[in-house]
């Protein structure tokens, strides 16, 4: 479904991602982990198009999307959520999701100009909010609702795009133990419903619990890949995490 070939990028002479190859199969829930500074976020940015790679290519469902802008990828069903939740702060929670639910209408500015019918988008957005259990906050401005809600709202926004591949950048960060576990369950459930998911996460406990495959990134390259239990048992993976501090400095 998603394939990154020989992806590399350097910042000021430092290779942040060096020749990474990876494949994500339809229907899977893959975890992308690695110590601080391993290049996870950079790799994610390369895959989603926030950054253009120095070399290598990204294919989505067999199409080369390396040069495709983010919004076009999103329209194809290749959707990402941000590490730090980025709501449209002055809109209500419902409006936040509605904008995402209307991508078919907002695809072309000129079409958007002549479209005033908000009913279909509203109905879909309301359904999504209900499904994520945040319907009670629908009419509150996004800037005033707590983080747990925003995280869910962000997923609702992503789901409104009818994604086939969802890339989640540290969705559990900032949540407490119970919240994180519940949120992880939600992710697993979405996957079970047929959405392919790539999860970049620091919360190793939850990732190993729900992911069926792990990719460990270290120093900008893939260090290990496989079933979570096997990967976490490897010595080089443990060393990478324990020695993370020095590496983080070297790559800062």
């Amino acid at each position: 479904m998603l394939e990154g070939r020989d992806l590399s990028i350097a910042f000021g002479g430092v290779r942040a991602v060096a020749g990474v190859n990876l494949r994500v199969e339809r229907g899977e829930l893959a975890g992308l982990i690695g110590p601080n500074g391993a290049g996870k976020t950079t790799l994610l940015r390369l895959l989603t198009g926030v950054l253009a790679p120095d070399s290598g290519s990204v294919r989505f469902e067999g199409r080369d999307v390396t040069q495709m802008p983010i919004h076009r990828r999103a329209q194809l069903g290749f959707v990402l959520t941000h590490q730090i939740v980025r709501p449209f702060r002055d809109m209500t929670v419902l409006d936040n999701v509605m904008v995402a639910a209307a991508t078919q209408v907002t695809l072309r500015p000129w079409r958007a100009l002549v479209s005033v019918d908000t009913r279909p988008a509203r109905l879909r957005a309301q359904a999504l909010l209900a499904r994520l259990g945040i319907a009670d906050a629908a009419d509150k401005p996004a800037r005033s609702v707590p983080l747990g809600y925003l995280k869910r709202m962000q997923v609702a926004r992503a789901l409104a795009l009818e994604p086939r591949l969802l890339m989640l950048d540290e969705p559990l960060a900032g949540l407490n133990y119970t919240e994180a576990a519940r949120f992880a369950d939600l992710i697993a459930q979405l996957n079970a419903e047929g959405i392919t998911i790539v999860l970049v996460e620091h919360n190793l406990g939850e990732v190993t619990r729900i992911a069926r495959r792990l990719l460990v990134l270290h120093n900008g390259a893939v260090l290990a890949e496989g079933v979570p239990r096997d990967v976490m048992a490897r010595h080089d993976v443990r060393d990478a995490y324990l020695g993370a501090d020095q590496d983080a400095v070297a790559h800062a």
Partner: protein
Amino acid sequence: MDYYLSVATFAALNVILALGLNLISGFCGQVSLGHAAFYGLGAYGAALCSVAGLPMGLSVAVGMMVAGAFGILTGFAALRVREDFLAIVTMGVGFLFLGAVRKQAWLGAEMGIAKIPSPLDKWGYAMLAIGGAVALLLLSLHVRRSWMGRAFGAVAQDEDAARSIGIDVSGYKIAAFFIGTAAAGLAGGIYAHMTQLIVPDAFNFVQSVTILAMVVVGGIGSTLGVVAGAVLLTLMPEMFRFINDYKLLVYGGLLLAVMRFSPEGLAGLVHRWTGRRLA
């Protein structure tokens, strides 16, 4: 009567200018400090056509297209730079326009373009300008209600988030610049025919700031607020002719006071007092 007509006409032109800028800055969140350049482009485009013998309607349309075309170019610049960088780049666009026109003999350089045919009378121009202002007012209210307005809002509040939910941020920015600058071009075309004389200085940085001031005094993003701001700031210098000597002092002080005590402008005041948000 003539005096009131000409004041009303200028107020209407300022409404067109301010609503155009509000589309770019208020709706789509792209700060522009060079709006007068597009007013000027419309005026020069229309004037050249009219002097060459085209009918006024066509000339004004050409002026709008010229302004809109340069607006699209500026929109492309807005894809490269954001926020404060964009503010200074647009300010630069204004200085560039002015500094280039000043030196172009075919544009009359500092002398400007004179003897622009003027087929309408004072009532005609007043009606035309007011008609344009009303049209733009309706357009603004419509945009706000349409999906374009919602997409603008998303771009204004967080470009990256907008992209990640599939919104064509570049397309919307360029659309906003096109509509807003073409509106300025319309105002310019009417102005050129009405005054029959245009000179570069009428479109300088102070004019850009004046338009911006109308938008922020009215309340950036609020269509009705901006209309009120434009009308108020047009009438104020006229009403304050008796304090002639302190005009700019009062004007600058007013800008400062609004920003200091009600940064959301008149629309913010209305909201605070009545609890209602102006459209």
